[in-house]
């Protein structure tokens, strides 16, 4: 960046404010594009590379401006002219990562831009030194607090300026970052909100805010500037807070107003679909994204997760090789390779790559959990527990790690012990059927059948992913000789399968038909019984039984015992049972965590 334009724009506050106070709607896309280009330039001058990248990407997705519309660079002020030489030199140093040197030459500069760069280089210098120390030591086992010597001094100086109201939008942003690094979350949030008011176009401030807000309630009480940037922010934070429906709605709106080409939005939508486990949609969107932007590395770990779930080996292999060519020392790349090895059942190698990812970024949460899964595959339960615990330490709300811990203890045959972990996972994802089924299985092992029934029923009610809850419920009822309910569950199960229309092999289908055949047989509903028995004949394991039953039915019918033939039975479901279906699908109140945490 040594060759940055010699005509340097002015400080943001006074001169540019009319341009930089964006409207709240998307009616004028040209205006928006102008603003984006301007802010991309401003952030680049201050070394805020990620914000610059984001703005530029977004600007790129909008149609190009004609020459006449292009914004002339803002005029220079007296202060800027004074600091010009120092700034140019320092920026050059800054770009080659000689932060201390840059700070030295910027000392005493008065212009806002030079001041920001001065403070920012001091901050980065501290961060760099901290990172350098990390390299000496042990790699992935690191976590915990950051130690940046410069933070305290920066905080004092910035707070003085802040009180004197001398900070511009970028200054406020830096002040917020310093506060956040010092764990002063509340103050940091206030400062970031202020920053978004002063300079709404700066995406970095919004993004920092996203990281600090932990729930919906907090979001409600923020007073945010009413600009079009807010829409991007809201969509982003909804994704973070797992409010996927709202997020998708917002993104759809953004696409509708004209940002359809933005790779950022497309990737966010794909991630959202991934989070609600709509795998097919997410996959197709990711494929689209890769066509648009083949050298993109961000979010590719999510993509690889999807490929993994679908066990698409060749695609995953292609992705892994491709990313490795682009940049093999990226967290995402390591993660993709790890997934690739895991899919090939080379779990040691997979664990190795996840470890490498953690070396690159110790706070990269996903890798801890994935590493835990790998250790589980290797039957190294203690290492798995360790990895999951690390994941939880990084983020207490990581439900997969809790679930993984539960699974580990379940493998160790400690069903009561793992209840706690499954409950934790369930608390975090109340509507995820997998946790509920796991809980139900544990209760079943502990012979707490009432609780188990509740869990299975609830799992079915929230939309069972694996379609196993009903069968398990039915079997429970069978055990408790509640044949009526068992039959109902089997019927619902079969209905579910047929309505899905999927031709996935369901092992339990034959069991269901066999039970139903026998049930109808006992109830002397011959027609239904024979239909079910015929269905039984279609499966290998129940064929003999089905045939035997059919013979028996025939015998009994021939003896003239057909009292129930008057009953109308169009399909094998009695009308009473199928009518029952809708009202019982309500979610019964359930208190799983009543007794213990």
């Amino acid at each position, binding site marked *: 960046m040594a060759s940055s334009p010699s005509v340097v724009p002015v400080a943001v506050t006074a001169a540019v404010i009319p341009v930089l106070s964006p409207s709240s709607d998307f009616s004028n896309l040209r205006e928006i594009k102008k603003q984006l280009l301007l802010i991309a330039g401003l952030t680049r001058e201050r070394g805020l590379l990620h914000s610059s990248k984001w703005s530029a990407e977004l600007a790129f997705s909008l149609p190009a401006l004609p020459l006449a519309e292009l914004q002339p660079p803002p005029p220079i002020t007296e202060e800027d002219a004074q600091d010009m030489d120092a700034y140019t030199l320092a920026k050059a140093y800054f770009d080659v990562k000689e932060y201390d040197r840059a700070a030295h030459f910027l000392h005493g500069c008065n212009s806002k831009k030079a001041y920001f760069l001065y403070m920012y280089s001091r901050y980065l210098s501290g961060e760099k030194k901290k990172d350098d120390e990390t390299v000496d*030591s042990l790699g992935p086992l690191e976590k*915990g607090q*950051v130690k940046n010597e410069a933070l305290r001094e920066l905080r*004092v100086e910035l707070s003085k300026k802040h009180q004197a109201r001398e900070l511009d939008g970028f200054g406020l942003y830096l002040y917020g970052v310093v506060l956040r690094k010092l*764990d002063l979350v509340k103050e940091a949030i206030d400062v970031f909100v202020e920053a978004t008011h002063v300079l709404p176009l700066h995406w970095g401030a919004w993004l920092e805010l996203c990281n600090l807000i932990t729930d919906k309630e907090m979001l409600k009480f923020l007073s945010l500037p009413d600009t079009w940037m807010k829409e991007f922010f809201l969509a982003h934070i909804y994704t973070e807070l797992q409010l996927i429906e709202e997020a998708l709605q917002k993104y759809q709106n953004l696409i509708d107003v004209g940002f359809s080409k933005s790779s950022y939005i497309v990737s966010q939508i794909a991630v959202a679909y991934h989070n609600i486990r709509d795998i097919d949609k997410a996959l197709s969107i990711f494929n689209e994204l890769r066509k648009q932007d083949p050298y993109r590395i961000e979010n590719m770990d999510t993509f690889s997760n999807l490929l993994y779930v679908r066990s698409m080996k060749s695609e995953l292999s292609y992705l892994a090789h491709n990313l490795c060519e682009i940049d093999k020392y990226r967290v995402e790349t390591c993660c993709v390779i790890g997934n690739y090895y895991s899919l090939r059942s080379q779990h040691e190698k997979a664990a190795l790559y996840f470890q490498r990812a953690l070396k690159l970024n110790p706070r990269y949460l996903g890798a801890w959990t994935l590493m835990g899964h790998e250790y589980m595959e290797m039957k190294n339960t203690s290492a798995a527990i*360790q990895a999951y615990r690390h994941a939880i330490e990084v983020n207490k709300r990581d439900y997969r790690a809790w679930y993984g811990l539960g699974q580990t203890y379940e493998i160790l045959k*400690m069903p*009561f012990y793992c209840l*706690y972990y499954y409950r934790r996972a369930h608390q975090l994802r109340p509507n995820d059927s997998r946790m509920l089924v796991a809980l139900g299985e544990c209760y079943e092992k502990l012979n707490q059948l009432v609780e188990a029934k509740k869990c299975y029923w609830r799992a079915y009610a929230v939309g069972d992913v694996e379609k196993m809850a009903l069968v398990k419920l039915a079997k429970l009822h069978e055990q408790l000789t509640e044949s009526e309910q068992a039959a109902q569950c089997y019927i619902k199960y079969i209905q579910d399968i047929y309505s899905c229309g999927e031709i996935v092999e369901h092992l339990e289908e034959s069991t269901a038909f066999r039970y139903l055949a026998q049930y109808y047989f006992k109830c002397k509903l011959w027609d239904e019984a024979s239909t079910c028995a015929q269905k039984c004949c279609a499966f290998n394991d129940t064929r003999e039984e089905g045939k035997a039953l059919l013979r028996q039915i025939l015998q009994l019918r021939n003896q003239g015992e057909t009292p129930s033939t008057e009953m109308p039975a169009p399909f094998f479901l009695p009308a009473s049972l199928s009518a029952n279906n809708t009202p019982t699908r309500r979610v019964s109140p359930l208190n799983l965590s009543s007794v213990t945490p």
Partner: protein
Amino acid sequence: MASVHESLYFNPMMTNGVVHANVFGIKDWVTPYKIAVLVLLNEMGRTGEGAVSLMERRRLNQLLLPLLQGPDITLSKLYKLIEESCPQLANSVQIRIKLMAEGELKDMEQFFDDLSDSFSGTEPEVHKTSVVGLFLRHMILAYSKLSFSQVFKLYTALQQYFQNGEKKTVEDADMELTNREEGERKMEKEELDVSIREEEVSCSGPLSQKQAEFFLSQQASLLKNDETKALTPASLQKELNNLLKFNPDFAEAHYLSYLNNLRVQDVFSSTHSLLHYFDRLILTGAESKSNGEEGYGRSLRYAALNLAALHCRFGHYQQAELALQEAIRIAQESNDHVCLQHCLSWLYVLGQKRSDSYVLLEHSVKKAVHFGLPYLASLGIQSLVQQRAFAGKTANKLMDALKDSDLLHWKHSLSELIDISIAQKTAIWRLYGRSTMALQQAQMLLSMNSLESVNAGVQQNNTESFAVALCHLAELHAEQGCFAAASEVLKHLKERFPPNSQHAQLWMLCDQKIQFDRAMNDGKYHLADSLVTGITALNSIEGVYRKAIVLQAQNQMSEAHKLLQKLLIHCQRIRNTEMVISVLLSVAELYWRSSSPAIALPVLLQALALSKEYRLQYLASETVLNLAFAQLILGIPEQALSLLHMAIEPILADGAVLDKGRAMFLVAKCQVASAASYDPPKKAEALEAAIENLNEAKNYFAKVDCKEQIRDVVYFQARLYHTLGKTQERNRCAMLFRQLHQELPSHGVPLINHL
């Protein structure tokens, strides 16, 4: 706020704020504070025999151990400590640190080079394997492992440490002298420190692993033995959080946090901490290859067992049972008999809440002896004794069993169990109604304590057994009418076991019971009634019983009767014999108060049979009193008198003062009643004897402030004097009666119709 401490407390094992204590197998590292201690040691070695007096040297030696083990402290504090024991040495230490800090890096390097000299020579100053020697060698080793940049950092940290110490002393000495510029600079500094100051008070920087281990074990033992001396729950949690922040792998801290959460009855956090601890323990267990798979599985079993214990403590018996089953299953699979033994004991504890399962317990004791687990075995014996005591086994057998287990305790010096055993003896003696013996045992436990503080090892001041013994002591004193002494004991209890501590419920119940009894004696039924709620909260059965008594005293007979019947059925079901007998007595009293003494007789006989069977002498004599009274009402005073002669001896020996009074009063009544048929001279003699007995009864009643009873006695005496024609005495008694009667208006109960 980690960054703050790090500048003050240099720590090479820390990266990113995380302490990697075991990286090089070193548990300790050099910090500026440690350098100061090293200087002190060095100085102590250098000053010859003559320079420091023997007293000072002894004080210094005593100071050393806490300095070596404890957490890092500021320089000024260190100076102060040294100054207190030896001012002269403090001065030279100060000078040397000043020289080192204000000099160059090579001064420090030279210092460490010279350190090892103290081991050399024909007569080394420090022995290599002594505590000090080990410390010195640890430090030298840790120092030589430092890298180039780390040495420099250590030096700058030392300088800063020194400057902070200086600044503090300067501040203390003369605040005004600091010139303006410096003041401004300080202002800036202070501004920085504002948010940190409060934190700094409690947590003084990261602890090394050694220091942390010391801290944890100290707090844990305090929690067990003397809760009041441990840090308060909040501050302890703060310390632990701090510790975990710097070293998240320090699993033991999670366990202490579990214990701490138990103190405040926090189910959620304690479960969380417990499971976290075992997750972490499993990790370290797997890492240490020596244990291998064995150690790993072991921690799993104990994890389940601990979870069971946790649920049991919070009263989730069903959950506890499930967890216990799991522990048993895993232990069985891996043939871990020791763990199984523990499970068995817990199984008994759980079973106890449901039905009696002494078979289980006997098994447990036998097996525990077999596997050489003396602690479990004696604990089992003690539980067994307790159970048998309730089941009415003879005292000599129980005492024998306790004596045998005592032998075991002394042999293995299980002082905790010795305490429990004595407390149990106190309780058993009280159960059998031998107040003198109980008193003696309780006193013994308390003086044992003073005996133990001599050897200064483990002081177990605030265990449950002490609370139990003290409560018994308070009740015994109250029974004898020494209310001042009782309240003194209770005050002591309150100090020792503050209201939110683990065993506070014991004295709370005891306190309320004593208050209740006093209120009843005084005839302040409304006061007693208000206490019932408190008692019910602590012990529901006791509460219901007391409620019935109050109702009875207030003449609400039918309500009282209903309540008593319910209570009787309940107590019979849970086999609480003591309470059954008490209830039966109350029921009998109800009957004769409602003028149907004939119905009371079978009830009383039942009570008598029960109390004889279970050898509850105290209740037996009370029952006899009631029987005699019933006979008196039924008009057979001679019978009653002979019955009384049987019971009076144990009552006078061991009974409560109130019972003594009642017994004497009853004797007098019977004497008078049986004298009715005598010829005049003999009658007069009998009446004189009765008056004597009445005087005695009056004295007893006066001791416990029973105004109502005194009134009755005085009335009776007046009547007797009247019969004997002693007008003067009669008038005196009549006046007394009038005074008392005005104080407490009678509730329409026939005066004589009262035991």
